[in-house]
Structure formats: C-alpha cells, structure tokens
C-alpha cells in the first residue's frame, strides 16, 4: 500500500538532492538544473496530495509552479549568457562583481 507518506519521502529525497547540487557544484548551469529538481519535488508533493484528497486544486498549483519554472529558466539562462559574454566564465566563484 502506497500512502502519501511514501510520496512525501520521495519528494523530500529529491529536494535534498537538489539542495546538495546547489550547495556543492560551481557550474551555474548545473545549479539551475538542481533548482528545477527542487521545483519537481514540490510538484510531486502537490500532485500526491491532490490524488489523496480527490481534489484537483493541487494539480492547478502544480501547473502554476511549472509556469514559474519556465519563466525562471528563461530569465536565468539569459543572465548566464549575458554574464558569459562579459567574463567568459560560468563558475559562480568568479561571479563576485557586486561583492563589497
């Protein structure tokens, strides 16, 4: 019997993998992909509760999360391109122009 707890544990594990990716990697494209993994973990939670409660509102919010993820990816990758054109790197340790 698969309960919502199983889905929550899967979602938490996927979320943790995303957080570890954000904290450990220095390639900013991989960091953006880790953020997509985190958003997917949130979506799994929303859909699991939507199925458990027999209520489609969770799926509506999952669609909103996907829309925000698409917007985030577009703007973030635009920022990466603009930064790469100026500094020829995508290493976040070298992105310290605004550090004081």
């Amino acid at each position, binding site marked *: 019997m698969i309960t919502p707890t199983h889905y*929550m544990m899967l979602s*938490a594990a996927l979320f943790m*993998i995303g*957080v570890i990716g954000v904290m450990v990697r220095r*390639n900013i494209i991989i960091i953006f992909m880790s953020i*997509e*993994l985190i958003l997917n973990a949130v979506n799994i939670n929303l859909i699991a509760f939507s199925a458990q409660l027999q209520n489609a*509102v969770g799926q509506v919010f999952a669609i909103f999360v996907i829309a925000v993820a698409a917007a985030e990816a*577009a703007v973030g990758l635009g920022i990466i391109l603009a930064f790469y054109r100026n500094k020829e790197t995508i290493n976040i340790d070298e992105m310290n122009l605004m550090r004081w």
Partner: protein
Amino acid sequence: MAEAIAFYFLSACILGFAVLVITTRDTVHSVLFLVLDFLFVAALYVLLGAQFVAAIQILVYAGGIVVLYLFVVMLVNLKRPPEAHQDPHRRTGWGFALSVAVLVELAAVGAYSYARPASALAAAGSAGMPVTGNTEQVGWLLYTSYLIPFEIASMLLLVAMIGAIVLAKREL
C-alpha cells in the same frame, strides 16, 4: 501490489537520475539525465492519476526547458572547465553540514510519521468530490476559481520572455 512495484521502480529511477544530474562532469550528459528524470516524474504523475499535468510536464519541461538548457550549454563553449577555479573563501564544509542537518530532520519527520500514520488525511480522502475526467476538472478550476492567477501567470510569462530577450541580445 502493482502500484507498489511501479512506485518503487519510478522512485529509484527518479532519485538515481537526479544523483547523476548533479554528479556528472560533462554538462551535456547532465542535461540529458535531466530529461530522463523529468520523463520518469511524468510517469509518476500518471500513476497518481494526473494525466494532464503529466502531459504538461513532458511538453514544457522535457520539450521546452531542457532544449533551452541545451542551447545555453552549446552557446557557452568553455575553454577551461568551470570547476577548475576554486575560491579559497568558499565554505564548502558549511554547505555539507547544513545538508546533513536538513537530512537528519527529514529522516526524523519520516520516522515520526511512520510511527503514527496520518488518520485524518486518510479520512479526508473519502469525502472528496466525484471523479470525472482529469483534464476537464483541471480546466474547470483554472477558468473559474483560479482565473485571475491564471491570467497573472500569463503576464509573468510575457514579462519573462521580454526580459530574456533583452538580457540575451548583444546590443539593443
């Protein structure tokens, strides 16, 4: 039983490919593992009875966002790998320590909820609304109760599109 087998198989694939995404050296391989991960997550949505969101997941994530990532990976042709430069002030130890702390908290929450199964949630499931077509239900909600958030999401996408074009253009 079949549901349990499908769930554990899909979970293993999702977590395994997620680990591969963040550990692979080559960025292109990482993006391809991300596609596989999104496809297995879509299969998990089908298992949960959310066919519409599964289709959206495949169309938007595996079809759109990942192609965007691939384009950026191809555009930034790197002469030296980004992991070569190491910041001496970077506090990697703190990052690992925080991750371990959150992992321990999640394990504690999981152990607690296994010890006390959520009876209120199981009871709430029985008193739900009648199940009709999944896409019909979602569309009905999107165009009635959640009409204003839906329109705001379209404005957000428009603004993001303009912003991405302005950022990526060489000179205006």
